[in-house]
């Protein structure tokens, strides 16, 4: 029995215009971490989700990726109700966290073969993509080295290659550039740009505001679990009334109070 997304669910994805729709998304731990969040991200968009520590960014993305169950609200991924049909949603999502989790005793190629098997990618296509992805991330000399000897940056690259192997429609990245050197970060950014050019959607959290400023089509700023501002850089400037302010200026103006409180 095929345990993956049914074909009908896949077809539904093409009918929808937005890649991700969150409505009234709520998650409480000892306090509301995500508080009735509404968010809409278009297909083929590079969206940067910013916010101070503890704002609810990671919790939001973990709920979208199916790692956390929301207390209330809805999540729609390319027209698929991710809460009702998580398997179908996961088939077209990729998740990369800031803490690369790998199997120490596997090589990058073995790891990617395993990931390809989980997503049911054709082995020949999976192998070709694995080699191409790892090469584009500068990992070619280490294809058959076990991951136990890798630096954090190398692990992050292998994780990213694994996440992109099944050619996901929605790529969710939580601080993907943490621990990467400048050259590696450039590799990752190029790879993400290529995906967006191919019509895939990227949603990324980052504390490196320069990256968001340069790469994102739209930026959302979240504080205390709620979206406090959203738009292109110019739109954010207009909202705040800072004519030529940098993203850092806008960010501080938007969430400075929250950061002091945190």
């Amino acid at each position, binding site marked *: 029995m095929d*345990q993956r997304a049914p074909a009908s669910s896949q077809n539904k994805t093409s009918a929808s215009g937005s890649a991700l729709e969150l409505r009234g998304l709520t998650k409480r731990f000892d306090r509301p971490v995500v508080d009735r969040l509404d968010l809409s991200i278009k297909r083929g968009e590079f969206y940067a989700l910013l916010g101070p520590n503890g704002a609810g960014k990671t919790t939001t993305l973990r709920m979208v990726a199916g*790692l956390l169950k929301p207390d209330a609200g809805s999540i729609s991924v390319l027209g698929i109700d991710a809460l009702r049909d998580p398997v179908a949603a*996961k088939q077209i999502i990729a*998740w990369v966290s800031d803490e690369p*989790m*790998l199997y120490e005793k596997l*090589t990058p190629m073995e790891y990617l*073969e395993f990931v390809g098997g989980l997503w049911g990618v054709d*082995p*020949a296509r999976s192998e070709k993509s694995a080699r191409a992805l790892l090469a584009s991330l500068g990992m070619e000399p280490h294809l058959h080295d076990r991951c136990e000897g890798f630096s954090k940056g190398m692990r992050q690259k292998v994780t990213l290659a694994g996440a992109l192997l099944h050619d996901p429609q929605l790529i969710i990245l939580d601080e993907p550039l943490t621990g990467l050197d400048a050259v590696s970060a450039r590799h990752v950014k190029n790879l993400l740009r290529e995906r967006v050019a191919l019509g895939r959607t990227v949603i990324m959290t980052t504390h490196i505001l320069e990256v968001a400023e340069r790469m994102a089509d739209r930026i959302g700023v979240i504080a205390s679990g709620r979206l406090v501002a959203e738009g292109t850089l110019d739109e954010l400037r207009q909202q705040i009334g800072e004519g030529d302010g940098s993203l850092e200026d806008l960010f501080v103006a938007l969430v400075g109070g929250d950061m002091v409180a945190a």
Partner: protein
Amino acid sequence: MNSSAALAWFARHEFRLMRREWLAMMTAGRRARLVGVVAGFVFVAVIMHLLAYAVVGRIGDIDTAPAKTTLILVTASIVLAWALVLSQAIESVTRVFYTRADLDLVMSSPFAMSTVVSVRMSSVAVTMIALALVMVLPFVDVLAIGGGPRWFVAYGVTVAGGLSATAMALFVTVALFRIFGPRRTRFVAQIVSAVVGAGFVISLQIGAVLSYGTMSRYALLLSDSAASNLPGPDSALWWPARAMLGDGAALFALLAAGLVLLGVAMMVCAPVFGGNVVSVSGTAAVSGRANDEPFRLCTPRQALRRKELLLLRRDPWLLSQTLMQFLYLGPPALMMWRTFGNGSGTAMLLAPVIVMAAGQLAGGVAWLSISGEDAPDLIATTPLLPSHVIRAKIEVVLMVIGVTLVPLLVPMAVASPSAALAAGLGAAIAAVTATSIQLWFRAQARRSQFRRRHNSSRIATFAEAFSSIGWAAAVALVFVAPIVAAVTAVMAMLVLALTWAISPRRT
């Protein structure tokens, strides 16, 4: 800070960490459990004292100038306990190198490496002595009640044993580093530790099986050949036994020897250990192997199974941790081989051992497969139903148990089909039971935390042990007292039902 003040300061730091770690281990990080832990200790202490009374309750007034057979038996008991402590000490000393924890911080500080190593080794010695004292405490108490306070000198013998075992562990570990290098030492040390721990009992049993056709270790110790071949009562060989029986001079000599041995071991090994610690930190750069095999077509469940089996195969240290209990199957297997073809009695003797081992092995492998997941986010974001993931992992556990037990069950079936059937059924039930318990109490952890898996739930640990013992007992009794066997099986099922009832609810 001068060197002795630095040593004292660092020792205080170490012992504070030890105390907190021990408390965390006992209470699983919840202080509220402390009362329960204390009550548990009292309960275990009472049971242990009752057991000790059953074993040594009538020999407290033994003669202080004992017969040679008494000296042999006492010495054998001391060697057995010492071997167990040495086994633990080898593991603890090796762990110092491989559990990095704060070692990077300490190594980058201006502390002399020899100071760090000396303090860490002292803490190992203290731990080992404490462990040995806990082991002998009920026996010494019972002996003292029956034979007077002279038996309290046994605590001194225990301290001397802890000191000498730690010293020996230091020498052994340094030698292993020299011979096998930093990459293999942890694995080899674990085997050495298990062989040392079990080796004494097993070799006594093997000797008894080969010489007298019985598995009783006493057969060899009480034999005429042992009495005639071993030296006379005045030999230094019997000093530990004499000290144990109240000889003050022998005790003093043992304590002095233990202290000197540990001192020498620290002086010799501390500088070498500094280099070893550094070399272990350099083993992170693991070279790979050339492998250009094409990717294989598989279903997601096959991919999961392959991954689990590959990880087990690649990490012999983890696998050997669970397989070590099979060492104890050696003597019964030897006995079976020796009596092969002349009756099914031995096969029936082996059946409960196999069931017990299957339960324990399944518990360990199930933890590795179900809870010990190094990439939980990856697995949780795959387009698979959680039930399919769990099913694939359970399949791996049962495959490992099957592959391990079939080579034992096949010859057994030739000797005694009914015993093999009972062993096979019992092993399957024990494995499924242990796996179910691990499933109900699963708590995400890294595979490298295998040694600490019992911390996550004491209930799961005890339930796993009780049900394995229950099924093994049921199989042992099935041919001699079927009704009692049925009652035992029902009790094992009740333990399982109770465990399920109190397991955390999952949504």
